[in-house]
C-alpha cells in the first residue's frame, strides 16, 4: 500500500498499540488534533483518552512523567512537537531517562520512545527546523534512530517501541508527505542495522533521515556522469552499525557524510574519526562532510543555501574523487 511517511508512522503506532496494551501515546496536541503533523491522527478516537492523551504544555513534564509511567510498567511514546522544543526536557532525557537502567543495575527498564520531528526545508520559523541528534547520540544510555522512508517509518517505530531501551526517534519532517510502498507484511530489517540503499563502487555516501533522499538523488545524477555512488542509510545513529558502514567504505575506499546538523562535533565527525582510524590503510581520500554550517538555523528564506543539497553533495564527491 502507498503511504506517506507520516501515515506510515500513524499505522506503525496503531499496530504497536494494538499488539501491546501498555503502549501509551502522550504529548502536546496529539489527541483530537492528531498532532501538528497528524502523525497520531485518529488514535485517540480509537484507543481512548487513557492511552492517547494531551499533556500540559511542559516538555520536562512529558519526559519526566513518561519515566514514572515506565517504572509503572507502561511503554510511553512521547511526542515532542518540534526539534527546537526538546531542550526543556534535556535533564530528564540525559540525566534521568538515559541512566535509570544502569543506575538500577538493570532492574528498571526504560522502554520510552521520544518522537521528534526534525530538520529543515519546510519554510518554518525559528526553532522549527533544527537537527539536534548529536546531543542525544553523544549521550550514553540512549539509542537514537531515524527513518528515511515510509516503509522504515512503519517498522522502525514499532521496533523502537518494542525496545527495552529508551529510543530517541527522529522523524524527517520534510519527508512526512513523501509517499512510497509500505508492505506491512514484510519481515523487517533489524532496527540496529544500517542499510545499503543503493549499491555503488566509487564512493560511499553516508546519510540518515532527510538526507537519504538527497543522497539517492545525487547518486542518480552522478550515475549519468558515469560515477557509481553507494548510499548507506544509517537508520541507527546510536549505536552506529559500524559493521555495515565499514564494509561499504572498505569496498569503495571513499566516504562522504551528509547531514543537516552543524558540522562541528556532529555525526559526521564521529564517522570520519572512526573510518580514518579503522580503515587507515584502505581509504584513498579523507572522509568529507557535507553539513549545515556552525550557525543557528537561518531564516527560512535562505535555508536552501544552508542545507546540503544534491549539488553540494556532488561537489564533495568531486573533491573526494580528486584525491
Amino acid at each position, binding site marked *: 500500500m502507498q503511504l506517506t511517511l507520516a501515515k506510515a508512522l500513524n499505522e506503525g503506532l496503531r499496530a504497536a498499540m494494538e499488539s501491546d496494551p501498555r503502549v501509551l501515546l502522550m504529548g502536546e496536541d496529539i489527541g483530537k488534533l492528531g498532532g501538528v503533523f497528524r502523525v497520531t491522527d485518529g488514535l485517540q478516537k480509537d484507543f481512548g483518552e487513557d492511552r492517547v492523551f494531551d499533556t500540559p504544555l511542559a516538555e520536562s513534564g512529558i519526559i519526566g512523567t513518561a519515566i514514572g509511567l515506565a517504572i509503572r510498567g507502561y511503554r510511553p511514546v512521547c511526542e515532542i512537537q518540534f526539534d527546537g522544543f526538546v531542550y*526543556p526536557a534535556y535533564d530528564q532525557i540525559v540525566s534521568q531517562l538515559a541512566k535509570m537502567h544502569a543506575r538500577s543495575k538493570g532492574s528498571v527498564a526504560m522502554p520510552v520512545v521520544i518522537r521528534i520531528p526534525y530538520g529543515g526545508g519546510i519554510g518554518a*520559523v525559528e*526553532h522549527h527546523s533544527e537537527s539536534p541528534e548529536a546531543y542525544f547520540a553523544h549521550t550514553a544510555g540512549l539509542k537514537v534512530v531515524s527513518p528515511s522512508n515510509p516503509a522504515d517509518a512503519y517498522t522502525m517505530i514499532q521496533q523502537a517501541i518494542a525496545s527495552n531501551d529508551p529510543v530517541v526517534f527522529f522523524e524527517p519532517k520534510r519527508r512526512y508527505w513523501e509517499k512510497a510502498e509500505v508492505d506491512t507484511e514484510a519481515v523487517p530489517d533489524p532496527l540496529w542495522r544500517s542499510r545499503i540503499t543503493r549499491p555503488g563502487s566509487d564512493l560511499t555516501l553516508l546519510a540518515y533521515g532527510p538526507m537519504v533522499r538527497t543522497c539517492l538523488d545525487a547518486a542518480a545524477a552522478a550515475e549519468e556522469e558515469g560515477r557509481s555512488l553507494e548510499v548507506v542509510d544509517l537508520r541507527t545513529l546510536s549505536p552506529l552499525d559500524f559493521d555495515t558502514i565499514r564494509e561499504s567504505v572498505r569496498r569503495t575506499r571513499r566516504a562522504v557524510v551528509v547531514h543537516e546538523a552543524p558540522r562541528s562535533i556532529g555525526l559526521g565527525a564521529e564517522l570520519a574519526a572512526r573510518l580514518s582510524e579503522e580503515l587507515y590503510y584502505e581509504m584513498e581520500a579523507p572522509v568529507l562532510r557535507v553539513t549545515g554550517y556552525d550557525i543557528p538555523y537561518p*531564516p527560512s528564506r*535562505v535555508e536552501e543555501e544552508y542545507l546540503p543539497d544534491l*549539488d553540494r553533495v556532488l*561537489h564533495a564527491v568531486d573533491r573526494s574523487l580528486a584525491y
Partner: protein
Amino acid sequence: MTVTPEATTTPLVQLLTPEGERLHHPDYDVDLTDDDYRSFYRDLVLVRRIDVEATALQRQGELGLWASLLGQEAAQVGSGRALRPQDFAFPTYREHGVAWCKGVDPLTLLALFRGASNGGWDPQEKRFNLYTIVIGSQTLHATGYAMGIQKDGAVGDSDGEAVIAYFGDGASSQGDVNEAFVWSAAYNAPIVFFCQNNQWGISTPTSTQSRIPLYKRAEGFGFPGVRVDGNDVLASYAVTRAALDAARTGQGPTLVEAFTYRMGAHTTSDDPTRYRLSSDLEAWKLKDPLERMRSFLFKQQIGDSSFIDSVDADADELAARIRKGCLEMPDPDPLSMFDDVYADQTVLLEEQREELGTYLAGFAGGGH
C-alpha cells in the same frame, strides 16, 4: 481531568460591558479623555487590520506562517498602552498589538513570519524584546531584566521602571514560567506577568493546564493575581497600569490574567475545527473588543461615523503599506547568515562563509 466550574465563572474586572456600557470599579478605574477613548479605538482597529492583512499575505504564500491575534486586541492594546516609555516588554510570538503600541513597525514582524529574519528590531531602542517562540522562556528574561532595574536603583518612585512579561495559558505549565514566579517573588522584582488566557494552547483547552483560574497561581508564590476581562480594553489598561505602578514603586510582582478568546486558528497552519465547537466562537463574538468600544463611542457621542470612517481609512492605508512592503521585501543575502552569530567573529565561521561564498559564486558561473 477535573474542571471546577470556578475556572469559567470567576468574576473579572470589567470597565466596559460587551454592550458598551461604562462600569466603575473601586480598585481599578481610569480617568480618560475623549481623545484617549478615540485613540484606544483607533489602535484596536489598526491592530486588527495588521492581523487581517498578514493573514491574507500568508494565504497568498507571502508569509510562511502567521499567528493571529484576532479577539485579543483589547488585552494587547490595553496593556500595551499602560506601559510608560521607560517600561520594557517581553512578548511571545502573538503580541502584534503590543508591538504596535511600542512603535515596532509591523513590517519587521512580517519579516519574521516571512522567513526573512529571526528578529529585526532593536529591543533596547523599542524597549520591546524580540519575539520568543520557545514557550515561557521569555518570562525569565523579563525577570532578570527587572532585577537589573532594581540593581540600577531605578525602582521606588512613580518614575521608576517596570517590566511586563507576556505569556499564554498554555505557557503557565512550563517550568520556566513558574521559576520566573519564584524569582520575582524572592527578589520582589518590578514585573507584571501578563497572561492572555485565550482558552487554548493550540488544541489544548486551559483545563488541561490548570483546574483553577490562572490568576490564582500567583497566590501560591506569595504575590497578587487579578483576572481582568481581556476583551475590555479599558479594564485591561487600568489593571495593567495599576500593576505596573505597583511594580515601579517597589511593591513587587503581580500576575494579571486577561480572560479572552482566540477567535482564529492558533496559526495559519492550524485547523481549529478539529478540536472546538463553532458555538463557542459564536458566544465570544458577542464580546468582540472592537464592537464594544465602538458602541461606547456612539453611546457617549464621542465618535461619530465620520470618525469611524477616518479610522477605517487609516487602516486601509496601513494595510496597503504593509502589503506593498511585504511584496517588496528583499530576501536576505545568504552570506549574512554568518553575521552576528558572534560579537567577535570566529575563524571557523569566516572559513565557512568563504566556503559558501565560493560555492555560490561557482553556480553563478555555471556550477556543477
